[in-house]
């Protein structure tokens, strides 16, 4: 049973991680990351780390991903950037180096004898045990993390809300929208002008 759950969860995790990296649309990438986080939580449950699995779902899937999706929606289609003009040998070198690291880790892990798994009681990984460790032995780390989160919140507000949004000049807008938009706009303004002229001449003739 454990083996089946492990197999399904790890295949889902790897597939969704590949989707995160390979998708062009960041929205799809973020949703794939949600699947990755859920599969990792399942793997952590197999390791009897209930509290960390629950925190993974609540913190990542609940909070971080919502923020990601908001920013992706704010940025819009400008966030969709393909692979572009990369030198092929550079891409090949990166993938080769990454594969090398994987093979290296797998060889080390398979070759090493890490001994028997410790036997644990039912209290292992429970919120009570983790919470006790967090506020007794690791109190300093706990407080430092809270200070860092506070500083990051301030930094996020300053980065995101500080300054004034830049207004594009007409030339920049035209350059972004392209010639067809320029022609369309010119046509529309000419039609409006002629309509106005027609109405004024009509009134003066009357």
């Amino acid at each position, binding site marked *: 049973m454990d083996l089946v759950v492990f197999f399904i969860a790890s295949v889902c995790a790897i597939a969704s991680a*590949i989707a995160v990296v390979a998708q062009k649309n960041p929205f799809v990438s973020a949703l794939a*990351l949600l699947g990755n986080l859920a599969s990792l939580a399942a793997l*952590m449950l197999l390791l009897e780390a209930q509290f960390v699995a629950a925190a993974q779902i609540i913190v990542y899937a609940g*909070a971080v991903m919502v923020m990601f999706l908001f920013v992706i929606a704010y940025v819009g289609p*400008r966030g969709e950037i393909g692979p572009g003009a990369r030198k092929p040998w550079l891409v090949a070198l990166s993938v080769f180096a990454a594969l090398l690291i994987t093979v290296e880790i797998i060889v080390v892990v*398979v070759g090493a004898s890490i001994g028997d798994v410790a036997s644990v009681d039912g209290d*292992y990984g429970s919120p009570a045990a983790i919470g006790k460790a967090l506020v007794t032995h690791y109190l300093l780390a706990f407080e430092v993390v809270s200070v860092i989160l506070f500083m990051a919140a301030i930094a996020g507000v300053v980065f*995101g809300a500080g300054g004034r949004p830049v207004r594009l000049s007409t030339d920049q807008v035209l350059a972004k929208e392209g010639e067809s938009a320029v022609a369309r706009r010119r046509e529309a303004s000419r039609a409006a002008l002629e309509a106005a002229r027609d109405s004024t001449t009509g009134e003066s003739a009357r």
Partner: protein
Amino acid sequence: MSVGIPSFLIVSAILFTIGLVGVLLRRSPLTILLSLEVMLNSVNLTLVAFSRQVGGSDGQVFALVVMGIAAAEVVVGLGLVVAMTRRAMVLDTDELRTLNG
């Protein structure tokens, strides 16, 4: 437990490498941040796996701390992305080379 700890470590290594390839090859800062999340989560899995191997709660506390730091990092990164969007800059890490030496 029928599944050994090394299997978890191998899955974690594969996930880490996939995230690494994403960070190296993608150009959108949003996707780079998402790939960084994949890397951090794979490390979390390693920490939890070794924690299970040893039988203590230290690794799990470490994983929780890593989650907190990852959240802080995401806040700063997304704040930068929003600032770049507001200043009408190109969201492309290949184009953002003003600070190049």
